[in-house]
């Protein structure tokens, strides 16, 4: 007591000089400057992250948006009988012996003749150069058309075929005349002709539906490469993932949340799930390769194996999300149901699960979105291979080789022709579009059914 009463003012240390609140002293000024800097660091950090994100989206969109437009040439072709149906009996099997090379020559001749008939004067332009402006894919397209309808032979039809990738690139600003001098695939004369053809409406640029529907194409034909197989493959895999993860994930979560006794075994399961969620996805690819392909003998590159691997990748996340939404259902609901004599199982399936369902669906959709963008494990199970034909309809199609959207992005990005960069970026746009839709659905679900207890 005495000690305390003598304390005030006795020691000079710690005694603040009385001063007005209106004056900000030097120390406070320094402290406020530090405060300002600290705050600024936060803003800078956010600005850096967001501007990198914006830059990324911007570059990818500006590189990729042109993939949705494609140059094509329209001109008349006379389908001469002696070239396309030497036997002359319109028998499809015999006509099929004429390869695309035969069609290609016919198309080139016809196109060159048509261009020459239009009276364009370009110095140094040879017929071969004119013919090379067509895509290598054009022959296959016309061949399919003829084989589908042999009666066309002998007539003259108007065809619209893809232009060569370099011509397409020129119209999109990717190829210019200086480069054309060095590039053996295109000549400046062809570019001069291109300008004239555009003026005449023979060469037109239109929306590129083929990008969404065609299969992948070889290195020589970037203009005909499309995402058809990749979109189908991704869709098949998403179906498999959804069908497998939702029941398994819900069942596992119900057991762990509602029934599991607290013992070492359930502890083991819990630790397992949280660790699996953090295992790099590529390890799941190794698992898929070793177990599904080498051990179980499932077909390589197939959507089935891809779907199974992706199921394992996203099962832990789904279980974690599902458990969270089951836990969010208040115990009072369970007590109420148990109180009127429902069994534990009835309580869970009649009351808890329906209430947790919006949360479970949201979590599942978000996990599906992650699975849709997953690339590394799919590379290991062979989905990076070139797939030139669409898989057939489910269930047969699940066993056939396919590829996936993100894998296609990677596959095209690793090719040397810059035309494939445009495709790759375009594929990213498609991929992001699907992700956006899935996330939007998840957000709407959450908004609409969100419940606050």
């Amino acid at each position: 007591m005495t000690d305390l009463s003598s304390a005030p003012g006795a020691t000079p240390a710690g005694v603040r000089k009385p001063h007005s609140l209106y004056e900000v002293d030097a120390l406070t000024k320094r402290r406020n400057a530090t405060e300002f800097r600290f705050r600024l660091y936060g803003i800078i950090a956010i600005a850096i992250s967001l501007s990198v994100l914006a830059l990324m989206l911007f570059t990818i969109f500006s590189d990729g948006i042109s993939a949705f437009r494609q140059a094509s040439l329209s001109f008349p072709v006379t389908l001469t009988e002696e070239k396309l149906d030497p036997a002359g009996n319109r028998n499809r099997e015999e006509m099929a012996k004429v390869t695309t090379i035969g069609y290609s020559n016919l198309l080139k001749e016809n196109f060159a003749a048509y261009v020459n008939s239009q009276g364009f004067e370009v110095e140094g332009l040879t017929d071969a150069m004119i013919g090379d402006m067509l895509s290598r894919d054009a022959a296959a397209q016309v061949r399919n058309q003829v084989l589908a309808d042999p009666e066309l032979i002998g007539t003259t039809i108007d065809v619209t075929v893809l232009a060569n990738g370099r011509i397409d690139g020129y119209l999109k600003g990717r190829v210019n005349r200086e480069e054309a001098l060095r590039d053996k695939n295109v000549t400046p004369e062809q570019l001069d002709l291109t300008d004239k053809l555009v003026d005449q409406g023979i060469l037109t640029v239109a929306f590129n539906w083929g990008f969404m529907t065609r299969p992948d194409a070889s290195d020589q034909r970037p203009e005909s490469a499309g995402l058809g197989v990749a979109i189908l493959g991704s869709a098949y895999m998403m179906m498999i993932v959804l069908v497998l993860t939702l029941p398994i994930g819900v069942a596992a979560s119900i057991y762990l949340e509602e029934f599991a006794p607290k013992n070492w075994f359930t502890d083991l399961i819990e630790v397992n799930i949280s660790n699996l969620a953090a295992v790099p996805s590529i390890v799941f690819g190794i698992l898929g390769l070793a177990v599904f392909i080498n051990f179980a003998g499932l077909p390589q590159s197939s959507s089935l194996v891809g779907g199974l691997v992706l199921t394992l990748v996203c099962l832990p996340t789904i279980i974690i999300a599902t458990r969270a939404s089951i836990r969010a259902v208040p115990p009072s609901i369970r007590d109420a149901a148990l109180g009127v004599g429902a069994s534990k199982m009835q309580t869970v399936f009649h009351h808890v699960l329906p209430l947790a369902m919006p949360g479970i669906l949201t979590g599942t959709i978000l996990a599906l979105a992650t699975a849709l963008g997953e690339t590394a494990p799919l590379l290991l199970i062979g989905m990076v291979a070139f797939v030139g034909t669409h898989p057939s309809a489910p269930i047969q199609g699940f066993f056939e080789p396919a590829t996936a959207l993100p894998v296609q992005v990677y596959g095209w990005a690793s090719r040397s022709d810059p035309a494939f960069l445009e495709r790759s970026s375009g594929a990213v746009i498609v991929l992001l579009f699907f992700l956006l839709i899935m996330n939007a659905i998840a957000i709407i679900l959450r908004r609409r059914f969100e419940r606050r207890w």
Partner: protein
Amino acid sequence: MSMSMVYLVIAVLAVVGFLLCRARALASAGGEARNLHSLPNYYGWHAVVMTVLPSLLVLIVWLIAQPIYIERQLENYFPPGALEDDSQRTLIMGDVRRVAAGIETAVSRGAMTSDEADALSPEDVRARLAAARIPLGSEVSGQVLDAAQDYRQIVIWGAFGRAALAILVSALGLLYAVSVSNKDFRARNRVEQVTLGVLIVASMIAILTTLGIVLSLVTEAGRFFTMYPFTDFLFGLKWDPKFQGNSTFGLIPLLWGTLYISLVAMIVAIPLGLFTAIYLSEYASPRVRSVVKPAIEVIAGIPTVVFGLFALVTVGPFLRDFIAQPLGLGNSGASVMTAGIVIGILNVPFISSLADDIINAVPQAMRDGSYGLGATPSETIRQVVLPAALPGIVGAVLMAGSRAIGETMIVTMGAGAAATMSLNPFEAMTTITVKIVGQLTGDTAFDSPETLVAFALGITLFVITLALNIVALLIVRKYREQYE
């Protein structure tokens, strides 16, 4: 009888069982559902469970057992020494399966009758199949043809036996269900027990997955280490796989590249992520937070392959043209810096959202105490909030580190493939994940060390990331307990 027919029959039996047992139970209670032990539908579901589940189990066991039995059976056709070598064995068995499948397809296409197929001789089998447009790679030896014929027989009889057994079991199950369906039978309890069993099996898939990962990694890596010395792999300073064999697989350069890139990534991600989290949780108004937080999280929602493309097309060339070349540090677009910076950005939302949670878990009373003493917000954050949240933040950083180490697409597209060890961050280096992809997507035979080394790399990656995650989880769990 095809599998789908079997399933159809079982499904029909199940429906019949459902209706029958439900009706029987009701009848035993004199049509009065109140006198039943369980609701009428439970008797129906009990019948469904009894009809479907045992026969499905039989089918699964049969499907697993049949290939093993066939392999045993086919061994008799070959001389004792011929199958000792593993790769030899796979080759021969593959031949047998192909020939058998070829003959079967030919029969189903109508190119030959079943009798003709049985009478095929080793000399003409290839020609006959080629005529039916079924190409075989090589001439067929007598042993292989005999084995293939036997294989066909076993498969045909196997399919028949399987169908018969499955349907029989299903019918027995149905009979049993019918026999017990009366008003005192505890159908609900039985159905619930089965449901619980299904739930338990579902929750064990996680364990099975881990088991599958560990087993496949360990067995294949074990095969690799019989061909290549363990110490040479673990401490080797040179990575040089060759197509012709005689390759050198030293882990150290890959580990160096992996850790170097992850270090750069963490140097980028930690300050950005932490300051983002601090700003969002301590300074931002609710409005700003509601806009910025989702925007940052968009980064986490974008697939890594997109970041890989960004690294390849934009970041790599930018760093090369504006930093590496002017400073004379190299002229490679793919580099440690390229991959590290992009992975760093990718990890920002991960660190920031974890740190945000952790910072928010620090009780408001702590902050009030500090503000009440006249501390500024930054002083409060640095001296009170962060020290209190530190264990959790360390955990978050470790998790982010493990993600950076396991990241695949960005390094595949942005770091390069050259297994060099250098201090220059503008040089292309490679990582464990890049080499896993590289070795497993090549054309080498699956049994060669060039392919199997990927499993040794996989196990290395698995162990590193798992260790980091377990440590992180322990730290975070301990931290959570502190405030709960």
